[in-house]
């Protein structure tokens, strides 16, 4: 079975064309990026505002708790019933899924700035926005990147569900393979999702690593001498 899946993956003719693997990969990546971007536009300002002001902290816990309780497939079915066949329903469902981890990352990033440094920033005459820009955002950048990483992984793996209501993304191989009893296509599609997710994770991990090291060398006292 695995051999059949690998054979399917190895067949160049499966990679080309409008319904080929390349096209599906590109679609999958595109929907992942679009979802993350839209969610970030919504979640980042709110998370940053909560971390900066310390107000409405409960919103963060509430949203991540609610997100954990929400079954994405159920949500998708609900949106699908309301909006019909197409990309809109899975897109919305994925945005709902992506907002909580981005919100949590933005919030805890800003929150992680050293209170003494923040106090000093105000005391020497920075405005609230300047404190955010010069102190809190730089301090919180690695954590925010961590939130982004979690979110991208979740969305990239769950975006398979987009094929539930639309002819879109790598999920197509799973759904059509199931329908036509072609398990080598299903397994091949699943392997592709896993591979894509791993590649994204490694790339974002590397980015996070660079950001954290930058911060440590320039920041938190790893090279401290007395």
């Amino acid at each position, binding site marked *: 079975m695995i051999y059949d899946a690998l054979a399917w993956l190895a067949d160049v003719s499966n990679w080309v064309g409008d319904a080929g693997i390349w096209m599906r990969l590109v679609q999958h990546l595109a929907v992942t990026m679009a979802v993350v971007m839209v969610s970030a536009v919504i979640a980042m300002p709110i998370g940053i505002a909560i971390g900066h002001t310390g107000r409405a902290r409960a919103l963060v816990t509430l949203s991540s708790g609610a997100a954990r309780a929400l079954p994405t497939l159920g949500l998708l079915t609900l949106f699908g019933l309301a909006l019909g066949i197409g990309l809109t329903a899975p897109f919305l469902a994925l945005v709902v899924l992506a907002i909580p981890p981005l919100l949590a990352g933005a919030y805890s990033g800003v929150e992680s700035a050293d209170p003494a440094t923040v*106090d*000093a920033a105000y*005391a020497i005459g920075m405005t609230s926005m300047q404190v955010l820009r010069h102190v809190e955002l730089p301090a919180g950048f690695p954590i925010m990147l961590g939130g982004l990483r979690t979110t991208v992984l979740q969305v990239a793996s769950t975006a398979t569900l987009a094929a539930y209501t639309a002819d879109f993304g790598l999920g197509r191989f799973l759904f059509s393979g199931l329908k036509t009893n072609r398990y080598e296509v299903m397994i091949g599609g699943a392997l592709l999702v896993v591979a894509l997710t791993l590649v994204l994770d490694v790339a974002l991990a590397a980015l996070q690593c660079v950001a954290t090291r930058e911060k440590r*060398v*320039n920041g938190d*006292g790893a090279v*401290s001498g007395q």
Partner: protein
Amino acid sequence: MIEFENVNKTYDDGTEAVRDFSLRAESRETTVLVGTSGSGKTTVLRMVNRMVEPTAGRVLWDGRDVATMDAVRLRRSIGYVLQEGGLFPHWTVLRNIATVPLLENTPKDEAMRRAAELLTLVGLDASLGERYPSQLSGGQRQRVGVARALANNPLVLLMDEPFGALDPLVRRDLQREVVRIREALGTTIIMVTHDMHEALMLGHKVVVMATGGRIVQEGSPEQILSSPADDFVAGLLDASGMMAFVNGDRA
């Protein structure tokens, strides 16, 4: 001149940090608030740059109520030095020192040149300018903190336990440095410390405070040494090893 007029600070939970505190800190002099923790000395200090707003009473700077001034402008015109420097970890030493001038839209090269001058003024080698705070010793960080506070030529300098975390030798060096800078620049300094020795060494006026911002004794170092007001003051002197210098009959 900074004047405190019957200031109170009561927090929302009913804690009274400072009650009916009045004091006058003369221009071009160093006024030191000394006391145990919980005496409200830091609270009082932070009222000057409106990091704490009094619940009652006024703080006047040359006769003007600071509550009527714009908080950001006020803070940029007052130098503020705190324990451990409070430096920005992701900026170089020079960038840290230039913070306030750059916030005030001073051209970058001019702000950086001034920062380099200040680095020398506080006794640091110019080569440290490109380092990050984590690459400095505690004493060097504190000097950078002083340089940053002086960057905008403030008439008033607030110092909150600036040397508390330093070892005695470094501390003495920096204390001398502060005296030298004040004499050179004519800055009015208000300093908070729990170290009586430091208070007597640096203060023109020493204000001994007890719980709730109560002033136990106020006077020149000579007055405090020659006649400690009560056992509390004598205890503070004793704890700092200054009792040997007391010549009043309490000794």
